[in-house]
């Protein structure tokens, strides 16, 4: 542990993952990107894959992810991370490739790329951070914005008559036959954080095992653009997002195979 003298009777319980860079991030107070970054870094450490992992950073709040996670990185155009990951992984099937994308990036401008990467069964892992808003550009309406939720481009709340209902990405992609694993998790309580970590580890493990496409949708908070305190934000997520975006596993090739066997 950095800079801490250890007594014989002290036991290290918590350290910074090797794959996580020791810098101050640019994220706002109460934002859950930091939690998710840490979990990704922990999984990379635990699986011992840092030396053969490439991340694809998106356009959005996590655009600087390459400054925080210590693996090789590519910076994608808005929405195109799955296309970059495809191009890379097809050449280097020996490497582990993940994309980290927000809801504007993945569920709006990048719908074609994510649907087809998933459907081709690209052997990549996508971490889809859904905070129901465009963060980096200052809080505009996303395809995942909740009905009635005010944003700077729907100041009177999202009107579903004009803009439809929020897209449920995990459910949408789970209709495809090819993907290996799709689960929706959240990171607003310690209980949910532990479950999220389990899902992320499973997704990366599946990739290490050379299985098809894996995606973890992570319900996340954006206190700054939601106009709430961090505490209000976790509560708002629980009360508004979780009922509309039910948590859980939407597709798991292991289980599908098991149920096929049972039939």
């Amino acid at each position, binding site marked *: 542990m950095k800079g801490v003298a250890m007594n014989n009777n002290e036991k290290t319980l918590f350290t910074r993952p090797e794959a996580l860079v020791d810098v101050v991030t640019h994220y706002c107070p109460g934002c859950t990107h930091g939690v998710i970054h840490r979990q990704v870094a922990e999984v990379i450490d635990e699986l011992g894959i840092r*030396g*053969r992992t490439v991340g694809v950073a998106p356009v959005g709040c996590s655009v600087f992810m390459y400054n925080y996670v210590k693996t*090789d990185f590519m*910076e994608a155009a808005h929405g195109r991370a799955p296309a970059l990951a495809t*191009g890379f992984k097809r050449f280097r099937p020996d490497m582990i490739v993940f994309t980290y994308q927000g809801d504007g990036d993945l569920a709006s401008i990048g719908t074609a790329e994510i649907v087809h990467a998933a459907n081709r069964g690209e052997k990549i892992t996508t971490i889809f951070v859904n905070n129901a808003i465009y963060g980096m550009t200052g809080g505009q309406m996303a395809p995942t914005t909740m009905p009635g939720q005010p944003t700077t481009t729907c100041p009177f709340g999202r009107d579903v008559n004009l803009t439809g209902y929020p897209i449920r990405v995990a459910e949408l992609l789970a209709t495809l036959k090819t993907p290996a694993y799709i689960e929706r998790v959240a990171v607003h309580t310690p209980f949910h954080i532990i479950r999220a970590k389990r899902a992320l580890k499973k997704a990366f493990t599946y990739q290490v095992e050379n299985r098809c496409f894996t995606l973890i949708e992570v319900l996340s908070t954006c206190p700054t653009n939601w106009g709430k305190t961090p505490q209000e934000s976790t509560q708002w997520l629980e009360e508004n997002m979780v009922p509309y975006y039910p948590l859980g596993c939407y597709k798991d090739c292991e289980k599908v195979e098991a149920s096929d066997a049972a039939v």
Partner: protein
Amino acid sequence: MAKILMKGNEAIAEAALKAGAHGYFCYPITPQTEVAEYLSRRMPEVGGVFLQGESEVAVGNMLYGAASTGKRVFTSSSSPGISLMQEAISYIAGAQLPAVFVNIMRGGPGLGGILPAQSDYFQAVKAGGHGDYHLLVLAPSTVQEAVDLTMLAFHLADKYRNPVMIIGDGMIGQMMEAVEFPDKYEEPELPAKDWALTGAKDRDPQVLDSKYWALTGAEGRDPNIINSLYLDPVKLDDNSWILHEKYETMKRDEVRFEKYKISSDNRLLIVSYGTMARICETVIDELASEGVSVGLFRPISLFPYPAKQLREEAQKKNIENVLVIEMSIAQMFEDAERAILGAKPVKFYGRTGGVVPTPDDVKLRIQKLIENPSYQPSREA
């Protein structure tokens, strides 16, 4: 190797393999789809990657990701498809990655038509995407030259870590001609690709593949990052000046052109490229047999444009007029005019949208211009 009869699109595909292309990403579009059909069979034979993407937008970005490995990768498309790839082209140029784009041009704007044209000149030469960048642009006028330039394109892309574009009109892609391939593509040595993303586990980061930037995994070294984002304006300015320096080097070292029947008897100098230049050569031969001397200056590299060399020819005392002929409306004309800097009158004749001027169309304008040096060629003779 013996000469074989091949369609332009297929010859380009085979030339790419000869140059060591490991991967090809595509989306179908007329009149270049034969490249994809050919490589869907050939690429697996050579152990390479073939993938049909969901759109040209995705294909361009797949190329961006694939180029980050340090392998030789390319795509081909036609005008509307190339427009959709401009996003990725700008990113690839900004991140300084090598990749080859082949544009078998059809008429535009919009959905346009499917017949041969040269109307993507501005888009290719002036950079169709956003930002301060250029592509290195090569324009073949025969199928054999398409083969030679395609192989060269991969070398130049690696040499400059810059996207290279081959622009051929639909005629080049669809025409069958006898071509010859080298047994092995010989090229000068290139710098190591230590920029590539490769995963640095148990490896010295300086000897990753042979490209000096690909992404490879970061164990045992600092991570490689392929990026075009610089929020600090000074750093972005720096990056753009680094790119600019490359373009200045290209202007010095990569200018390519050909002179045809240029002599002190010429009163008229034609400037034309690609298929259009070939039609001009036919006319020049016909006129020569009738005792009329006309010369042709054919740019092969459109960026860098052979401006200095063209000016030298145009400035010669015997030249009364310079006539730019293209299958687009006065696009290359602007570069020729800028090269000649008012030294001689620069005139234009061209058709577009898939109308290919016939030798008779061209000959008529040339004859009129020689009879009357103040004649202005036009669509209606």
